[in-house]
């Protein structure tokens, strides 16, 4: 059992992702972090961060995250429209010779500042969200939070991961759903990816997408089957067909569902699940070590 293993000496980053939402990414990542004891948990689902609801971190330190947005000095602006023509994101418009910045669609590339011949544009900081660091038992909890109405949380994820780049500890990265740019950013630094799948046709369809994503990025990975019922499991069939390592199975269970819906860490409430997540962690660590050796 892992309880007797020295997890402190283990330094690896494990990303948990799923494609489809609601398959159990947060369930898996918070419980793995809790069972590993000394570990770091990073919630990269900045649009809807939930890990902190489970781990209930204390001693929270906060840092706001901002991006750079252009600001125009209308006295210097000659109305040449060079910036408007340059901006690929249509974040600038010149209306009645007055320059208007649409902050929500600005990607902060800085191009308009470069092209302005009058130096009429400068940059200001615009807060888009924040990151929080807290402690829950022996788990260090990092949470990224995007403000509502903001389009992209990527700068927040970048900051979260940059802050943890040199942390030599078992680290779990709870990813956002999907397989778009934001997920890619989250798994970039991961040593291993855990894909969580549910036994529905939807689950398989989205599992296939993240499967393609981790293959594209050449990340070693395995699958956790969640919400397993007695009946035939299309996600399991998918894994067998593609020869994907199944790391563990979590049954569909009302007790587990209730604990989890009340934001409890199930391993602290139920011995059966402590064992399940403990052996899942064992399997994951073995896999990572195996894969790292195989790749080196």
């Amino acid at each position, binding site marked *: 059992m892992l309880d007797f293993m020295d997890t402190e000496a283990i330094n690896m980053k494990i990303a948990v992702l799923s494609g489809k939402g609601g398959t159990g990414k947060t369930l898996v990542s918070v419980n793995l972090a809790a069972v590993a004891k000394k570990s770091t948990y990073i919630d990269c689902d900045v649009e809807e961060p939930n890990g902190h609801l489970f781990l209930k971190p204390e001693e929270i330190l906060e840092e706001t995250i901002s991006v750079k947005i252009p600001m125009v000095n209308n006295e210097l602006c000659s109305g040449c429209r060079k910036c408007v023509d340059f901006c690929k994101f249509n974040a600038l418009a010149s209306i009645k010779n007055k320059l208007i910045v649409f902050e929500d669609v600005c990607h902060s590339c800085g191009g308009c500042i470069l092209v302005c011949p009058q130096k009429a544009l400068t940059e200001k900081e615009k807060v888009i969200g924040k990151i929080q660091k807290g402690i829950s038992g022996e788990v260090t909890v990092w949470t990224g939070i995007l403000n509502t109405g903001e389009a992209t949380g990527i700068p927040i994820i970048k900051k979260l991961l940059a802050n943890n780049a040199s942390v030599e500890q078992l680290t779990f990265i709870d990813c956002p759903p999907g*397989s778009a740019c934001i997920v890619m950013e989250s798994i970039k630094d991961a040593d291993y990816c855990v894909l969580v799948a549910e036994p529905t046709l939807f689950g398989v369809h989205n599992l296939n997408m993240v499967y393609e994503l981790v293959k594209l990025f050449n990340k070693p990975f395995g699958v956790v089957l969640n919400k397993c019922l007695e009946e035939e499991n299309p996600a399991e069939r998918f894994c067998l067909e593609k020869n994907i390592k199944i790391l563990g199975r979590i049954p569909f269970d009302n007790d587990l569902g209730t604990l989890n819906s009340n934001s409890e860490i199930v391993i602290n409430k139920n011995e059966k699940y402590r064992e399940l997540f403990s052996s899942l962690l064992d399997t994951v660590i073995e896999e990572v070590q195996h894969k790292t050796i195989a790749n080196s």
Partner: protein
Amino acid sequence: MLILSGKGGTGKTTIASAFIKLSNAKAYADCDIDAPNLHLVTGWNSQVKKTDYYGLPKAEINLELCNNCGQCRQNCRFDAIKSDPDYKVDPFACEGCGVCEYVCPVGAITLKPAVAGELMLYSDEEKVFSTAQLKMGSGTSGMLVSEVKKQMRSSAGKVELAIIDGSPGIGCPVIASLSGVDMVLIVAEPSISGISDMEHIINTAAKFGTKTAVCINKYDTNIENTEKIEEYCKKQRLSYIGKIPFDSNAVKAINNGQTIVDIDCTSGSAVKEVYHKTINLLFEKDSD
């Protein structure tokens, strides 16, 4: 009408597919372009019309012209330019802003069009279904969402009711899907995470001033939290239009490619009730 949830996996697509069946909707769309699923249960066999979707272009460096000055890398805000030792653009990080092309003193960089996804259109004499799949790791998802809606509108013409299945979260695809809709139906889940996410999405929708209603899915998995959501809706004066029980038949229906109103089951009859209330709300004249 748009269906959203904040949190994933609360049952947006399950409910959207039931609504489409019940209303016999002439036009519908799947705006969860990052993980689309609606096509799996809407039973289209006809030929699908696929169109490549070009997002923003990506930069490319011509190494024969490049003089390794490093200007592009210094000015790129997205860390998209690597040098090992030749200068190279990371296509996944590049957002196509054109700064590198502008700063390059020797004209070695050009922006090339790049396929960022695929638009799909299913249609017959009666109805149209518009959906898309974003290419893996692509950005510009909000723009593709707008394209999906545009495609639906242009091929369906004027219809009374269009049902749009949204994506989880509160970011650009959700914001893009919100523009121009008359009503948002939020599918909430009675978990603490579900409630937290529901509040986020309600706040996001409120910024757009869109009429919002809430229903609870899998309500019996946690009665206490269900009551909390009902309480919250009352306090926020949101239209609360019913709850749907957890039903293992729903999983079976979906896995057979059916909607939950195709079979006789408890969740199916509950969703019918939610549907009728939604339609009444959608078409009622604003009283204030």
